[in-house]
């Protein structure tokens, strides 16, 4: 499991709102599936979790499993794998004085358990490819 926390400079209600309504502003720019760095990312109470490029193209990024503002959110998560092999993200929001502790717990599901670990022969094969490619590129650029 991956566990990460951060302390936000606001109360849990605003923290939950920033996480869900303004996801396009915190989602890493180089991890946009539409290729549009200014795409919108929406995490909705209806259950949809998707990205929309400025030209209207949409990509599903997962599903909202649990929507419990302002304390808890659980998402099926496709980036890194795909819809057939989702991982699961639990996001907790807890007041700490005037601030909010956000805790991310990111786990594999049964479908993605094998993919999650690095001891996958196919991943090693792909690393092999990358390393060889790097070596070739280094020679090429010399």
């Amino acid at each position: 499991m991956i566990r990460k926390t951060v302390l936000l400079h606001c109360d849990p209600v605003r923290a939950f709102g920033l996480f869900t309504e303004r996801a396009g502003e915190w989602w890493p720019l180089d991890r946009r599936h539409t290729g549009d760095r200014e795409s919108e990312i929406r995490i909705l109470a209806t259950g949809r979790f998707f990205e929309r490029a400025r030209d209207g193209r949409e990509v599903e990024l997962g599903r909202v499993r649990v929507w419990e503002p302002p304390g808890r959110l659980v998402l099926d998560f496709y980036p890194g794998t795909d819809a057939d092999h989702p991982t699961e993200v639990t996001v907790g929001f807890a007041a700490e004085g005037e601030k909010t502790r956000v805790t991310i717990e990111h786990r594999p599901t049964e479908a993605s358990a094998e993919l999650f670990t690095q001891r996958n022969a196919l991943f090693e094969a792909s690393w092999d490819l990358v390393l060889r490619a790097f070596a070739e590129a280094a020679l090429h650029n010399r």
Partner: protein
Amino acid sequence: MHALDALGSPVRRQILKKLNKAPLSVGDLAEKFPVSRPAISRHLRVLEDAGLVESRGEGNRSLYSVRIQGFAPVREFLDEFWDVALARLEELSKR
């Protein structure tokens, strides 16, 4: 399609090796392989959907290049994702 499935095809692995040396268009690749342009386009679409290559428009053609972060193992990919995401979220909460 997942990166692992995309890498399952020998032609796609060969395409990746070519693209790693220099960005190429569909036409450039079609000259190097004994397969049709539409077939090359289909392979590129699979690689692009899997996050292994990216395209950018240059003049009236698209140039394809290898997207190195697409090769990271899932756990590492997600770990880095949250490091960047949470740092950005913290910044957002200060505004």
